[in-house]
């Protein structure tokens, strides 16, 4: 059980921050959403999930009909974990509520990578807990296939409140694909998601998150990552479909020596979408390396692409690359790469570019017989191609499939 005093302190902090505006992004009025959802029954058989929900999940890489290439599955609808299964004895998967009941020590990880009083959204999740998932790879374990997790909003006007904790114990390797989606209704909804990652010595996590929201959903994820000696964290974020407003700025603290972290984001903003996305890496451990790569396209929506790397230890290296393409419409891309070095012996760099497709490149491909549309599609596909090392083939394929399926909407 959670220590009463600790709980009191957290609640008090949350109450104090209940009206604290976030540093970035449009301020969302949380009062207009509902905060309570009816408990949904547990489903042993995923086939009983409604077809509409299944179709939405599939677009985020969550395969409920055939989970043979997944090491485990956890699905949360609204505030209920409706399915949770692991196929490996050394990978634990359960709801966060259950995990907190099972493991006293888990409180040492609860709100440690993300501050409960960071803003009104973190505070809201503490004051209105709505479950979430707990995934833990035991020491030395390795997922054969990725673990899949899905967070689905079915209830109209719900502010889904989620707290996830992911732990890769020493020497383990954990691959996760997370699909976040909502029913394709015309109703408003909101997703508030806390994700805390702990990567122990020599462990590795690859976390691939695909968002498939709707033009009426506001999204405020809050993510913190703590990486110990020789730990590796690979984050791949893909959003190709419309969303009303999304703001996120995950932070990785590389506290150990020789850590590796990579953030890859592939983002498309159709008309009406407002996206403020970033990644921050604090290199506190000597010899640590990081790379933040974002590829953004607007077809009418607005994107702010942030990136921040801070070097605080010797021999750290970081590179930040923000590239944006204004494909059509009147949207905007605002790239804000930031570097901060606090001592000698660090190596940080960045490059940023925002523009349209070079006509010279289109003509070059047309010279080979491709039509203008084929040439443009090929260049866009290439632009969004982020080569990701260390991902299982299933996840690389899922990212490619997601990008390709959205191509038609873009052109």
């Amino acid at each position, binding site marked *: 059980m959670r220590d009463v005093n600790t709980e009191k302190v957290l609640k008090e902090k949350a109450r104090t921050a209940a009206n604290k505006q976030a540093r970035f992004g449009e301020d969302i009025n949380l009062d207009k959403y509902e905060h309570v959802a009816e408990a949904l029954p547990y489903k042993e058989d995923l086939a009983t999930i409604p077809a509409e929900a299944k179709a939405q999940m599939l677009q985020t890489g969550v395969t409920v009909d055939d989970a043979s290439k997944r090491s485990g599955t956890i699905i949360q609808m609204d505030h209920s974990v409706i399915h949770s299964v692991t196929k490996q004895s050394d990978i634990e998967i359960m709801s966060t509520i259950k995990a907190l009941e099972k493991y006293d020590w888990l409180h040492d990880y609860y709100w440690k990578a993300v501050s409960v009083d960071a803003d009104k959204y973190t505070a809201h999740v503490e004051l209105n807990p709505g479950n979430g998932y707990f995934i833990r790879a035991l020491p030395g374990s390795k997922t054969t296939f990725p673990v899949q997790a899905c967070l689905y909003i079915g209830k109209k006007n719900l502010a889904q409140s989620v707290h996830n904790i992911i732990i890769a114990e020493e020497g383990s390797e954990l691959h996760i694909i997370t699909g976040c989606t909502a029913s394709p209704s015309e109703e408003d909804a909101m997703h508030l998601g806390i994700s805390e990652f702990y990567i122990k010595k020599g462990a590795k996590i690859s976390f691939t998150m695909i968002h498939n929201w709707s033009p009426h959903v506001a999204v405020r994820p809050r993510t913190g990552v703590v990486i110990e000696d020789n730990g590796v964290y690979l984050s791949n974020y893909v959003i190709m479909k419309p969303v009303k407003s999304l703001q996120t700025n995950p932070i990785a603290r590389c506290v150990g020596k020789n850590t590796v972290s990579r953030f890859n984001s592939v983002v498309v903003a159709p008309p009406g979408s407002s996206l403020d996305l970033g990644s921050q890496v604090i290199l506190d451990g000597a010899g640590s390396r990081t790379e933040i790569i974002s590829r953004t396209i607007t077809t009418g929506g607005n994107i702010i692409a942030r990136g921040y790397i801070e070097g605080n230890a010797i021999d750290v290296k970081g590179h930040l690359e923000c590239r944006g393409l204004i494909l059509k419409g009147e949207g905007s891309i605002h790239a804000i790469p930031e570097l901060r070095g606090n001592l000698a012996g660090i190596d940080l760099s960045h490059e940023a570019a925002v523009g349209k497709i070079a006509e010279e490149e289109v*003509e070059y491909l047309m*010279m*080979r017989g491709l039509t203008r549309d*084929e040439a443009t599609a*090929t260049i866009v596909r*290439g*632009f*969004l191609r982020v080569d990701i090392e260390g991902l299982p083939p299933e996840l690389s394929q899922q990212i490619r499939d997601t990008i390709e399926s959205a191509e038609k909407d873009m052109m």
Partner: protein
Amino acid sequence: MSEPILEIKDLAVTVDERPILHNVNLTVNKGETHVLFGPNGSGKTTLLMTIMGAPKYVITGGKIIFKGQDITYMPIDVRARLGIGMSMQRPPVVRGVKTRDMITACARGRESDAELEEIVKSSNLSELVERDINYGFSGGEIKRSELAQLLAQQPDLVLLDEPESGVDLVNISLIGHLINKLLQKRQHIRERERSGLIITHTGHILEYVDARTGYVLLGGAIICEGDPHEILKTIVKKGYEECRKCVM
């Protein structure tokens, strides 16, 4: 007599409203290879890019006939699909588009995977195919990549803009070999389906590739036509000044 594949009649071209080519006339018959000489800025690349159909090169007079069809105002991709292919001197880098993808796109489903692999191998591109097209390529690598794309594209008319520039002595022989393969030089001229128009600044490529006719382009006009080796000999010996005298 062989049938013409390309006929250029009284062609005049401007770039950014600046006249570059004037009254250019030229005919390339099926199976023949012709060579264009000329100093920097004489309009050689403009001529090739205009035949290819790049929109920057605006035709203000004359006609281009390809395989009997007037293509003067046809878009670049339609010309490519009709059978014109070009190797650029400095092609652009296209980030994210792999060299392999380009070669595959050029084939448009005509060649099997095995045939495309053979093109990659014979062009010595095996180590480059997974790299973004032209990204960080050396001069020789660019030329080999361009020729591999043309081998996959199989154009009837091959336009080559300085295929030997930036290529070292080891690579130039391979470049020559690939051009000969592309232009079906092993076959008798009567059996060749492909024709070529090659820009050469130095003439080195003539040591590897046979050509039937040479032209000298000066100030945007063709001022001389004849045996390419003789023309080259004169240029090497006396420079383009001698060519200028011929037209005075």
